[in-house]
């Protein structure tokens, strides 16, 4: 559990005169569920984009899965999974076809994909829907399949950008069960969310505001330190300051 898989030091991103992320420093350990919280516009997305190699930092230092974000973005890409809030799966492909495609772009062999897909279908109990197009599936199923796709190639870290947006509480619960299970097999989970009850499920959380981390730690410790009763209160306390 002690191995560090994400490490940033004074990571900064400027767009012209605007500083989106300022001096970000934190560590994430192997197998940890790390909640990355913050109001809209706090700089979360910019920070994630730097970590997954979509955006080059302006200054500072960061490694992901042991690789430098400046020098080895290609190696990082092989070791992470990413589930974006905007896109999850190709709607005009079936569940199996999505698995095959995404497995393929991560270089999995087709026999391996077949075996893993069969296992997954069995595990999630989706024999009936495996050959259905994604657009025919209810959103709950889509999110579950999307998560399975993101961890299909067994990445060291999976980045989840608001994975449970627009999903009902029951599916959210099932979704978090899947996250726990992945974490048990030592996949590190880096998750952003706006649901503060979900923040409680995380091992550690950080709350960002105006491009910097304002609070970092175990949810119950943080509540104690800031002297609040709930995550909601903590979030308001931090995000309200700028108003």
């Amino acid at each position, binding site marked *: 559990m002690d191995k560090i898989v994400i490490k940033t030091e004074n990571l900064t991103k400027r767009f012209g005169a605007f500083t989106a992320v300022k001096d970000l420093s934190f560590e994430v350990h192997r197998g940890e569920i790390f909640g990355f919280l913050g109001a809209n516009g706090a700089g979360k997305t910019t920070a994630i984009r730097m970590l997954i190699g979509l955006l080059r930092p302006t200054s500072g230092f960061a490694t992901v899965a042991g690789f430098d974000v400046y020098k080895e973005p290609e190696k990082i890409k092989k070791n992470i999974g990413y589930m974006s809030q905007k896109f999850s799966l190709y709607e005009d492909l079936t569940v199996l076809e999505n698995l095959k*495609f*995404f497995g393929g772009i*991560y270089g999995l062999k087709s026999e391996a994909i077949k075996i893993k897909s069969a296992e997954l279908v069995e595990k999630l109990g989706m024999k009936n829907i495996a050959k259905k197009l994604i657009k025919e599936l209810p959103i709950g199923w889509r999110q579950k399949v999307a998560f399975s796709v993101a961890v299909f190639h067994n990445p060291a870290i999976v980045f989840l950008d608001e994975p449970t947006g627009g999903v009902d509480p029951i599916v959210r619960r099932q979704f978090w069960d899947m996250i726990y299970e992945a974490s048990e097999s030592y996949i590190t989970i880096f998750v952003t969310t706006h649901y503060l009850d979900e923040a409680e499920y995380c091992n550690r959380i950080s709350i960002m505001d105006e491009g910097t981390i304002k609070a970092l730690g175990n949810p119950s410790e943080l509540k104690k330190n800031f002297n609040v009763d709930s995550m909601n209160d903590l979030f308001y306390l931090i995000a309200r300051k700028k108003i």
Partner: protein
Amino acid sequence: MKRLINFIIKEFKHIIRDPRVLLILFGMPVVQVLIFGFALTNEIKNSKIIVIDFARDEISKKMINKIEANKYFEIIEISQNKNIILDYFREGKIKAAIIIPANLSSDLNHSGSSQIQIITDATDVNFANSIKNFIRAIINDYQSESLAGKVLERLIIVPEIKMLYNPQLKGAPNFVPGVMSMVMLLVCVMMTAIAIVREKEIGSMEVLLTSPVRPIFIIISKVVPYFAISTIDLTLILLLSVYVLDLPIQGSLFLLIAESLLFIFTCLNIGILISIRTSSQQIAMLMSLVGMMMPTVFLSGFMFPIENMPYVLQLISNVVPSKWFYIIVKDIMLKGAGFEIVWKETLIIASMMFFFFLVSFRTFKVRLN
């Protein structure tokens, strides 16, 4: 390589599962060829005309017979009543009227010349012009045949009109090369651009870019299916034009295909460039239509002759790739021209392709960073 194939298979699935896309890709070329080939032609075939014959003598009879014998005209009435002409035109029953004056033969005998009047429906300018020329040609023909022997002392200069390469004034020869460039633009520029931009719009591009797949692979995998489809469309158009429109390919088929491939590659590069510079499918479509389709329709010479345009438009037409492709295809298909004739146009298209390739490649690199 395996990853690339995986990618390409996925692209084909996207295409196959969208009936609207399929319709555009395969229905459009067929419909365009058929519409342009049959419906929208300037072709003169069985055009209905009336003859007002005031002369009613030997010469006028012969002349009428000569016109009637021609399969391009159908005389629906021979009359002495001039007043019916306008009514016929208004009702759209006829395309032209010929008026033969009463003194036709006396004029011819005395002064050696006479006049007949040809009236055409000029609401369709091209059509009217071709009919006029046609009737004139028939009459001249008649003159030279029947009068040449008699009027030896006078030298009548008879213009001889020959419609080279397209003696029947068929519409298809002009339209097929035009349709070819339009379809290539549609498939290779618009559909390709849309397919790439679509990934940006639905957000999958971001996911793909965080994967180990090299960005250039993403582009190549998008281009391959549309390249394949455009070659199918090319075959389809050529087959239709040879077997349905009865328009044989005079020149070398190999050269025609090679030139078409060059044009396809040019279009694909333009499509890629558009897709890199835009982020929504609608804008990509608009850019392809306004930036490529409109110039093709208006400035390639396919609908309107470039020689008749204002000088500025003539200059602008030079940067429209389809203008050069249109010239090449026309030369090869209709005139049977070889590479020694079309090499200049080929060079122009090739340099355009190279230019678009460089620009899109550079833009692509800049965008990634």
